[in-house]
């Protein structure tokens, strides 16, 4: 099980790096917000995998928190874009 979670975490780390590269490459605010949202969801996925690896359900509370954080940040950026433009 440890080997499987290691492989999954490596794949997730690579995808997080690719998502953050999009944040650096793009110049549109909404684009960056979408890419960061994807990064946050990748972190949530990684937390679930780590919870399986450690057999610890405390990390699942953190996943709930990360999900809520992504929602609120999306709403905030949408308000910002409505006022200032993309």
């Amino acid at each position, binding site marked *: *099980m440890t080997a*499987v*979670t290691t*492989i*999954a*975490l490596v*794949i*997730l780390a*690579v*995808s*997080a790096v*690719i*998502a953050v*590269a*999009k944040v650096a*490459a793009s110049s*549109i605010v*909404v*684009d960056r*917000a*979408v*890419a960061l*949202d*994807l990064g946050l*969801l*990748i972190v*949530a*996925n990684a937390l*679930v*995998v780590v*919870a*399986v690896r450690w*057999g610890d*359900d405390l990390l*699942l*509370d953190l*996943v*709930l928190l990360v*999900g*809520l954080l*992504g*929602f609120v940040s*999306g*709403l905030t*950026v*949408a*308000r910002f*874009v*409505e006022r200032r*433009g*993309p």
Partner: protein
Amino acid sequence: MTPFEVVAAVGMLTGSVLCLLAAIGLHRMPDLYARMHAATKVPTMALLVTSVGAAFVLTDAESLTRLVLIVLLQFLTAPAAAHLLGRAAHDRRLTRSKHTVLDELEGPDLRP
């Protein structure tokens, strides 16, 4: 490995590969409206698959409740946030690529 652990492993690996595909799609898609497909729907699906896989290993009641809550919350909130972002970008006239042929929101604004 027990059969349950095999299912969990398949779930977690599928979820990870879906996340990788979403990140690649973020670079490959031509404009924001197409990119949002890759960046919002795919990782939500990945979280569902990973959580179902995790539910085969973390089988006590507390973990199962939390996993169900995670998936429910994500499926309720992710489309709402993504829709608001896309709507805001469209309202502020973010141009779309010539490959995106259909704009359901063009024409007069009918919102009250």
